[in-house]
């Protein structure tokens, strides 16, 4: 029996540290919502107490209910028969449980029966749910779909769909990918057309759709005849009724509880979300950003599960007359795993806060505009948080999912041969985590999404502010190292930009993004270390490693065209 919230000290540390005061004040309309809804908080303290209680419920369900079913869910998987998808029993039960606790309208407005919680809370919840069962996240974590309806749908659409999401009456699917439109969604072919009365219908085939058997589908389709790129695409909402045929489900490496469907739309009645032509370029981009943060949290949860298994096994397993935990190579792996986990949390909560800040500053901006007040300051604020959220979201997805993969890999390594067997959970975690650096945009695409922020220096002002601070003792040494990393970064960045070669820039984007990301996290860790002496150890290990990595990246980047890149064709000529 274990509560994934109350018994996870690092989650507690992050929860107690996080400052959402401004975010909550705005989300709660200066706590006016409490007048209308008895479950709305009356002040920030009350809100934080609510958050704690809600996460306790999530932690309890994840640790004591979901986790107990995860192995069986993985073994049974989803099944497909006569055109119908059936979830594994344990997954069904887990969904029911989350529903009973009223957790399905997590981020939606109270107007529709939601909990009006910030994204930051959602990230805590997704990590815990994913630790219990990675595949359950794909159902619980699909609430971005209803959020997209909330953000861009008409009142009529919102009133029709959102209350059903909140009660758990319907589940959703994000229906974007097609056989020939994966990473490149501009190539979407599914067609949307109107009849004489202006009603929309959908025709086409979609593939790799998580929970494609859902009751409500959010579908990206080509509404503009003759168009070829993203500007011809619009976003639609429809019911998964008889006109939507599930053709098959995929047999996958991991997250087997979550069905991945191929689906065909046969003149499916649909409603347009927002305005035409803005489907991909505006709405899906926002939707994807939310989903990316969710996947980062999912990766974190799986990695936490794998770490706990590895830590316990290393302690219990004895070889050569002692616990293997005491062998330097094993201890080193575990320390690295732990540091990666904790620093990933530091990063993800900075990201979620930026996303929350963006959302509330947009709300404020709209409110002030309506009131006819001055909006200059707020405009700048929105711009700032938008650039931070746009940089940190792909950075989080990239860094955390890659690290999570490494953690699960090492968790098997620590188990040795037994870890390769299905009797142990690490084998499942290893399979489950593998998708996290692929779906919702591969790592390579996250790098492309994040590199702009690095080139523009979105966090430079924060780095400057940190550099101007006076640190003492150990923190000072670490701050000096961060300065050195920054110098290396600048050197590499200038070198890359000077090359004026797009392929070369693209090739080395990953190194630049990693360096910039490690600077950002490094400074956050120094802040944490100022409040908690144990965190100084985490900061130290992290920054030392980041320094070595930055040196290696710089060496590789500034070596110029000596890299193998120029010789690709020759190297790949034969099998």
């Amino acid at each position, binding site marked *: 029996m274990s509560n994934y919230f109350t018994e996870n000290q690092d989650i507690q540390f992050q929860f107690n540290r996080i400052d959402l005061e401004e975010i909550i004040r705005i989300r709660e309309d200066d706590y006016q919502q409490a007048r209308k809804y008895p*479950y709305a908080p009356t002040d920030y303290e009350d809100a934080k107490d*609510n958050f704690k209680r809600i996460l306790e*419920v999530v932690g309890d369900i994840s640790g004591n209910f979901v986790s107990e079913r995860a192995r069986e869910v993985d073994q049974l998987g989803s099944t497909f028969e006569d055109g119908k998808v059936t979830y594994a029993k344990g997954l069904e039960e887990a969904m029911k449980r989350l529903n009973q606790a009223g957790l399905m309208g997590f981020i939606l407005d109270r107007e529709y029966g939601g909990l009006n919680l910030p994204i930051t809370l959602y990230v805590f919840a997704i990590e815990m749910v994913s630790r219990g069962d990675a595949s359950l996240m794909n159902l619980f974590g699909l609430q971005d779909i209803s959020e997209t309806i909330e953000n861009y749908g008409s009142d009529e659409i919102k009133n029709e769909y959102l209350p059903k999401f909140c009660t758990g009456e319907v589940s959703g699917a994000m229906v974007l990918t097609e056989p020939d439109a994966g990473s490149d969604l501009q190539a979407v072919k599914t067609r949307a057309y109107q009849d004489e009365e202006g009603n929309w219908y959908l025709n086409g085939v979609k593939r790799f759709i998580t929970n494609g058997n859902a009751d409500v589908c959010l579908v990206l389709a080509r509404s503009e005849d003759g168009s070829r790129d993203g500007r011809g695409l619009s976003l639609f909402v429809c019911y998964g009724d008889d006109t939507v045929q599930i053709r098959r489900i995929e047999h996958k490496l991991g997250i087997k509880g979550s069905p991945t469907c191929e689906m065909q739309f046969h003149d499916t009645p649909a409603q347009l979300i927002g305005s035409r032509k803005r489907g991909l370029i505006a709405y899906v981009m926002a939707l994807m950003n939310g989903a990316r943060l969710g996947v980062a949290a999912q990766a974190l949860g799986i990695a936490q599960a794998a770490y706990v298994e590895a830590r316990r096994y290393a302690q219990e397993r004895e070889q050569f007359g002692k616990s293997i935990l005491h062998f330097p190579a094993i201890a080193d792996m575990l320390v690295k795993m732990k540091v990666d986990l904790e620093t990933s949390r530091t990063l993800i909560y900075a990201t979620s806060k930026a996303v929350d800040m963006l959302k509330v500053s947009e709300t404020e901006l709209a409110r002030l505009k309506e009131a006819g007040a001055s909006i200059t300051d707020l405009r700048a604020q929105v711009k700032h948080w938008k650039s931070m959220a746009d940089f940190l979201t792909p950075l989080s997805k990239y860094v955390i999912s890659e690290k999570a993969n490494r953690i699960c890999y090492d968790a098997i390594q620590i188990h040795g041969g037994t870890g390769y067997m299905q009797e142990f959970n690490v084998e499942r975690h290893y399979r489950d985590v593998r998708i996290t650096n692929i779906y919702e945009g591969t790592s390579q695409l996250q790098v492309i999404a994040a590199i702009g922020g690095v080139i523009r220096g979105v966090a430079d002002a924060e780095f400057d502010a940190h550099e101007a601070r006076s640190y003492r003792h150990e923190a000072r040494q670490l701050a000096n190292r961060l300065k050195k990393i920054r110098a290396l970064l600048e050197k590499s960045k200038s070198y890359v930009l000077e090359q004026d070669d797009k392929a070369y820039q693209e090739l080395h984007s990953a190194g630049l993004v990693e360096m910039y990301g490690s600077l950002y996290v490094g400074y956050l860790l120094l802040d944490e270390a100022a409040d908690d002496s144990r965190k100084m150890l985490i900061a130290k290990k992290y920054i030392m490693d980041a320094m070595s990595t930055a040196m290696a990246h710089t060496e590789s980047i500034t070596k110029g065209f000596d890299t193998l890149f120029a010789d690709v064709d020759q190297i790949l000529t034969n099998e």
Partner: protein
Amino acid sequence: MPLHTIVLVKQVPDTSNISGEVMRPDGTVNRARLPAIFNPEDREALELALRLKDEHGGKITALTMGPPNAAKMLRECLFMGADRVILVSDRRFAAADTLATSYALYKAIHHIGEYDLIFAGRQAIDGDTAQVGPQTAEKLGISQITYTQEILSLDLKKRSIRARRAIKNGYEILEAPLPILLTVVKNAAEPRPFDVKRLCTYKKAKSKFEIEEMVDDSHDLVWMDELMNKALENDLYIETWNIEDIDADVSMCGLAGSPTKVHKVENVVLSGSEFKQVPATDEGLNEMISELMQDHIFG
């Protein structure tokens, strides 16, 4: 009339966590040292009642007789879905045995008024008597089904209920008229989690004692009235009743009303007896199996 169900609940010391520290030298348990929890079978009783409410609608009242801090458990009843909670608490109820307890509950139920069903856990983990439910039914003069495992059907038109009841080596299915009291055994219904909206709402529900505590230092009675009215207005008052409220006879309550006398408390020390080591070989195992079969432990 919509279905009205009363659930009898008790806050108990968590006896699953007894360690050396909580045992007194005389072998009794120092309850104050144990965390207070919702008696597990009572929680399942509430879950069964909630499932009937999910299906048939109606209203659930959770009722407890206990110390002021039992308000914590009543809040949990609200978090799970109870509509109304009542704390029957008075110093004069202290040290009640099952007879005095069932008398107080009977009087409280009488005071509540009309009802169709009463649910209770089979027994509480602190006393393990399994008497309070049946005695309460007797005093109310209604039917009872004890050791309920499952509700098979509830027919509100015919006013009857069918339930499966555990008996030694099996079960039996009973049908009985309403109103009725049912006691519920472990694993009858896994209790639902707290509903987070209810959690955020009813965390603020307070009993009379808790409101008194808030104004304790100031003795400001006006403030107390205000707090009380506000709690009532917002549906956040945990109704708190004393002996007079339920019109109970003092001589039948608490220690005075309890004929049970503890004759002797024996301090039982559990210790292992002799053991035998079985070598992990086929021969060793075969030998052990034949020995167990000879002793009729299995085979």
